[in-house]
């Protein structure tokens, strides 16, 4: 096999900085192979390693008596009583959606649904938070129709109701739209599945669709800024297949029910690499992969390509050896690929073989643990002078102002969006989109879940700390307003280039505000996602930390709606 020479240019094209490459040399004591370089680039990019954000995320409160699993797994898990757990997470698919809005959005929804059902939960609802450029920007219309159709196209076909979200327009998103998708699932507390492998010599199984050359470099793309010619560097676009995912869901839940699974991990960004390393490292085990066994869609795929492919609708699983036949039969019944692609080992090394050659042999724990960690310089956002209402002259009367406001794309009805989403499927949608929070019945009741996504980026830009707090508080209020008891949140932190101190300052400020609000309200963060480098030609997006909140209603029939119920009733204003 002809492998490219490792040159500084090649290293740079993998998004690795010279000092990061030095770190690799020191860690393995030799020049990495091409495949190894690819593996490092996948593990150490912003998207997988959280190298710019990790130290700040540590400040978030993540614990409460009802939290079963906080951040660090595929999704967060909270206890809602009666042996039931809610599994949820939000994730961004911003850059891919800008390049190909329909497919970018579908694969975003697909990815977050997989995160939830990998943990043993059946998805019961989806939400989405979308930020687009100014309505009059020439690309906006195309992006909006593609993204909305994509979010709907995937969820509708997969069969989960999309019950809420946000849509906003602002010129600062002209070159960087945001597509944040949240999925919520229901599981039994004693049947939650995790990523950590256990036991030596256990079969590692590949499940789902075949591997193609999709999205190679996708994970690195998610961590790079755009410039004017990024449209030219078109990566191989990932295409979503909700039909395959629906089969994967049913097959996964069936093998979990049959008690075949030791550990399971979704193949998300940088698919096989991240999933295999994570399963081994979390279980304190090594992993031997034999790529000859990986089902591929195209011929002649190299080890490098297989390790970095982002083909969708795939999973990696460690199986109870005695259950292999049974698990395989279940997967065949659903028409999905199933292949033993490796084994766990005691060596704590990540070994990848292809065509009889060892293409990579790396220390598995260090791949994750030794990833660079940055405390990037940050400056606090200068606060604006306080403006008092009495100092402002109203430019127009109250009625014209109101009319103008409700006609804005930002505040007008979002019916045109959510009518493209099946929000009634499963027959549990007690409160449909249009209210403060959606309410979804839990199985046959009487419990219900209140679900919402909130953030006001203008506030976050004016005062990151207050803006972060406000986003959490709004999620809390929306849940409370429908009668729910707020339990926990997932966050999706969308910001510009963290290498700029002002942007890093926004990030740090918002996180402080979020932490403070969560701590005060006893509203912990159980999962989340960070999306940085949302910037084009040096102009960043508005700081947009989307907050997805989940609350519980003991009796869904007691949920409150916002419509006035009768004439002549008193209207109360509470709060200050």
């Amino acid at each position: 096999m002809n492998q490219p020479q490792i040159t500084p240019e090649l290293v740079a094209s993998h998004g690795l900085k010279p000092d990061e490459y030095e770190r690799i040399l020191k860690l393995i004591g030799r020049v990495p192979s091409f495949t190894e370089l690819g593996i490092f680039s996948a593990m150490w990019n912003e998207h997988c390693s959280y190298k710019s954000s990790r130290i700040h995320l540590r400040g978030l409160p993540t614990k409460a008596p009802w939290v079963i699993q906080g951040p660090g797994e595929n999704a967060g898990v909270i206890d809602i009583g009666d042996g039931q757990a809610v599994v949820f997470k939000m994730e961004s698919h911003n850059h891919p959606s800008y390049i190909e809005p329909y497919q970018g959005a579908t694969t975003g929804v697909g990815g977050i649904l997989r995160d939830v059902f990998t943990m043993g939960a059946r998805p019961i609802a989806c939400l989405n938070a979308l930020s687009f450029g100014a309505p009059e920007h020439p690309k906006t219309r195309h992006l909006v129709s593609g993204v909305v159709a994509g979010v709907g196209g995937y969820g509708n076909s997969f069969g989960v109701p999309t019950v809420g979200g946000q849509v906003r327009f602002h010129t600062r998103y002209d070159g960087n739209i945001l597509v944040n998708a949240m999925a919520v699932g229901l599981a039994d507390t004693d049947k939650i599945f995790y990523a950590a492998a256990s036991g030596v010599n256990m079969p590692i199984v590949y499940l789902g669709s075949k591997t193609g050359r999709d999205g190679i470099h996708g994970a690195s793309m998610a961590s790079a800024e755009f410039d004017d010619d990024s449209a030219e560097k078109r990566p191989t676009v990932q295409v979503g297949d909700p039909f395959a995912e629906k089969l994967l869901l049913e097959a996964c839940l069936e093998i979990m029910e049959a008690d075949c699974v030791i550990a399971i991990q979704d193949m998300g960004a940088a698919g096989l690499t991240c999933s295999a390393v994570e399963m081994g490292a979390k279980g304190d085990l090594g992993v031997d992969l034999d790529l000859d066994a990986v089902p591929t869609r195209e011929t002649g795929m190299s080890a490098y390509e297989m390790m970095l492919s982002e083909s969708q609708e795939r999973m990696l699983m460690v199986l109870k050896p005695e259950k292999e036949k049974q698990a395989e039969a279940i997967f065949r019944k659903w028409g999905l690929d199933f292949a033993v692609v490796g084994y766990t080992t005691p060596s704590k090394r990540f070994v990848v073989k292809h065509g009889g050659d060892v293409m990579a042999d790396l220390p598995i724990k260090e791949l994750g643990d030794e990833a660079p960690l940055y405390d990037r310089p940050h400056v606090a956002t200068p606060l604006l002078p306080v403006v008092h209402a009495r100092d402002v002259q109203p430019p127009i009367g109250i009625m014209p102002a109101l009319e103008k406001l409700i006609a804005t794309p930002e505040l007008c009805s979002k019916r045109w969006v959510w009518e493209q989403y099946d929000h009634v499927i499963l027959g549990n949608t007690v409160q449909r989109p249009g209210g403060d929070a959606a309410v979804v019945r839990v199985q046959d009741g009487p419990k219900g879940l209140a679900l919402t996504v909130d953030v006001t980026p203008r506030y976050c830009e004016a005062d990151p700390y207050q803006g972060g707090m406000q986003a959490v508080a709004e999620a809390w209020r929306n849940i409370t307003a429908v009668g729910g008891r707020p339990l926990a949140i997932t966050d999706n932190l969308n910001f510009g280039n963290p290498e700029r101190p002002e942007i890093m300052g926004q990030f740090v400020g918002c996180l402080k505000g979020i932490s403070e609000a969560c701590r005060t309200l006893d509203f912990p963060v159980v999962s989340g996602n960070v999306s940085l480098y949302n910037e084009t030609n040096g102009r960043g997006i508005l700081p947009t930390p989307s907050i997805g909140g989940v609350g519980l209603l003991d009796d869904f029939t007691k949920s409150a709606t916002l419509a006035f119920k009768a004439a002549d009733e008193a209207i109360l204003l509470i709060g200050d």
Partner: protein
Amino acid sequence: MKSAVLVFPGINRERDMARALKLASGHEAQMVWHAETSLPKGTDLVVVPGGFSYGDYLRCGAIAARSPVMDAVRAFAADGGLVLGVCNGFQILCESGLLPGVLMRNAQLKFVCRDVHLRVERSDTPFTRGYNAGQIIRVPVAHGEGNYEADEETLKRIEGEGRVLYRYCSADGVVDENSNFNGAAQSIAGLVNERGNVLGMMPHPENHVEDIMGCTDGRGLFAGLVAHLERAA
């Protein structure tokens, strides 16, 4: 009422349907996998539920219509057995030749999920006896391809034989362009075969059977089927 709910890969409203059938009849519906070659003994009603069988790739319902179980359904229908197809189920019944015509993309080319009103055209059929003729009911739709089309001659026959059971209308029963949200020929939302024992419809009565959804207008369809089968028994 013993009902069999067909499950094709990609079908996703089978649970909603099973719940509605259980509520109406008190009996659990039997789920029947697409690869089966026969229906459970004593089946009174076959339901082809909604979803995206085979991803709705190629044409909606096309691949499912050619599944082994559909031969059994054809034989069941030929014997006079009751068959109900909803949404994707309607599409599958058309593709399998059990119903005439085809469901094309919605006129606005978008997936639409909202409550719509239907006018029940007659009440003397197993599928409508739970309603009064002319009654207006509210049920949700959720589809991208529900625009019913057939050639002139077929449409004339369907109308002449009174085979349209449900038509899109406004809240006060007006059937016109405005209430025909997906562009269907003659505002057809649901129709039966010549013999009257196979119904296909796009809207989802199974999602309006419980108070929690804010409306229970879908119940009549299921209650009518139960009543019909009880009387026949």
